[in-house]
């Protein structure tokens, strides 16, 4: 027997969009403030500029990802359904706020030492991992609400989130190795900054590619979570 699902409410999606964009704008403002102050006080070194580029890459990735995910049919339904179920969406909001606070702090600290930034990055990677894990759990919960728990495997957004989690896990390991190399003075601070930029850029490329495929398929309806059985035929 299928439970009655609430009608999608555009307000939920809109408020969530405003919330995300507001935070990202705040981070950009902080980033510019720190960059300008450091530039005026002549504290900005080559390494700090590379860290600044890292943050720019992260922000571009966050905006693009949000735009791509927000047109996925799963996403709209998911917010409406899951916000009324248990603690999934509040937890998701909490995890997202934590990620944004970390990004805000990184935007403040990027003009400092390499070690500070890389430690901040490892915490950020870990919080992304937790956030993605909660996202995955929320999507599973959404399908359970629809009494179709087995169809979650066919959801492309669910699959993409799984791939992001692997990227997050890799980033944690990468940051740990950079920290160890920095601590043992095997690499310079500039090398650490370059290593971080390479990891952030390439992972952003992989993450965005994984969603690129999700959206057109779902928008065509062939893999819509509401018609998952089509996939099996």
């Amino acid at each position, binding site marked *: 027997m299928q439970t009655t699902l609430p009608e999608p409410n555009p307000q939920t999606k809109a408020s969530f969009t405003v919330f995300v964009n507001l935070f990202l704008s705040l981070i950009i403002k902080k980033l510019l403030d720190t960059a300008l102050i450091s530039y005026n006080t002549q504290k900005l070194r080559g390494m700090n500029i590379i860290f600044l580029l890292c943050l720019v890459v992260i922000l571009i990735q966050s905006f693009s990802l949000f735009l791509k995910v927000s047109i996925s049919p799963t996403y709209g339904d998911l917010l409406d359904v899951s916000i009324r179920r248990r603690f999934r969406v509040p937890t998701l909001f909490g995890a997202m706020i934590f990620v944004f606070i970390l990004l805000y702090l990184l935007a403040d600290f990027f003009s400092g030492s390499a070690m500070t930034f890389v430690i901040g990055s490892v915490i950020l990677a870990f919080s992304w991992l937790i956030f993605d894990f909660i996202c995955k759990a929320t999507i599973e919960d959404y399908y359970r609400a629809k009494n179709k728990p087995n169809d979650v495997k066919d959801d492309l957004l669910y699959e993409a989130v799984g791939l992001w989690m692997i990227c997050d896990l890799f980033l944690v390991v990468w940051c740990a190795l950079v920290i160890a190399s920095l601590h043992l003075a095997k690499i310079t601070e500039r*090398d650490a900054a370059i290593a971080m930029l390479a990891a952030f850029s390439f992972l952003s490329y992989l993450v965005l590619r994984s969603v690129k495929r999700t959206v057109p398929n779902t928008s065509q309806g062939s893999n819509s979570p509401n018609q998952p059985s089509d996939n099996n035929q």
Partner: protein
Amino acid sequence: MNKSLHAKLLGTSFVASNISVATVVLALGVVGYNFGFWGAVWITICWILGIFLFAYLIGREPIHGYLSVGHTLHEFIGEQYDEPGRLPIVRLAASALTIFVFWATIGIEFFAAVIVFMKLGGGLSPMLMALLIALAIIIYTMIGGYRAATVSDWPRLALVTTGFVILVAIAIWIQHKSTVAAEPLFSISAVARVPPEWAIAGIFTLVPVQLSGMDMWQRCVAANGDVPAIRRGLLFAVPLNLLWLVPAYVGALAKTLNFQPTNVNHVVLEVLERIEPFIGSWWGWAVRPLLYASLVATMASVIDTLLMSLIFTFMYDMYGCFKKIDFSKLTKPEEAKMVIRAKYWTGLLGLSSLCVVFAGLIKATIYDLIVTSFALQIILFSPVLLAVFARNRNLRKRRLAFAGLCAGFLAAVAAIVRFLVTQDQRFLNGAPIAAIIVTFVIYLILVLSSPKRQVNVTGANNAART
């Protein structure tokens, strides 16, 4: 089909991916420096013997039958030792081993790039250069796939050869400009510099390595298992493998002239550094760019080939096995989905192999890492060899076969760990020997305890073909 062109392309592909910066340029320089020129000649002979053994065995059943239908190395091992209808643990373990070895080898090559740019960088950050090259190679392999990797082998081999010609010219020039040598270079007395235990370790490491390499099998499958064409390709590759001797000659020459490098692992690069003041402005705008291009081409040849083999093993032998995917029955959308997934994993595994760079910077040297990767790769030699020579027996004892692979892996790892703790070179030399002996003994027990087959082998092969 033009078989001679086919053979040449195969040969180029065999050589281009075998000449790596880490194993050939840096490690053979160390071999030349430590054990003299004849040490390098010895390991080249072992390598070529391995090629001949491979060329001989691919013509024998059951290997020939499996190559003809496009089966992988791990599929072959799984078909011999796994039990039908049960989780193919032997195939999965063999695949995991190959993935780990190739992943580490790609990382070692990136580590070699960092070392090269540290020595010859000319002011640029070595990490930046190595990462740029790594990302470029990974992205073009992701986008272009196996075609991009194979098509670009010819021009790259030309660049690699140019680099080696420059290197040998520099070495000969140094030899003629230098005064009395402290140690003999080519004389028979120089053979005494080759330690017997190291020479034995060379046989155990390098003869089995071709048969245990998924990349070699993959190329043979690409040639549709056409054994005469593959053999011609391998034969074409043999003289090109003599290029190996160039860095070894530079290393041996450095020792002969009593040159004391700050780090013996970078001896070839340090010799090049020394030559810079003598070449003058030519160095900056002609010699160094050509050497750089040659080294980058060398790295790209190895990395893209290994990355393709790695991802093929991962998607086909592991992911496909776990998900129970029948690749012959994939629909177009499913195939497209698999390709996208494979590209994602190509990118991620390629990038993650850069972690080996940090491991190398923190603890190990290029030489240690290379011996470790060879020691692990040759574990697959015994299962393949015994499957060929015991084809009249039913070898389907998956637990014992799985235990054999695990025991070989543990023996190699234990020897390497012991070496890292004690820094006793004997443990490093002993790692490949330990791995191969332990695996061989267990597989021999498996063969001897197996009953004779009930059905004839031709029938089994026909079944495999269908």
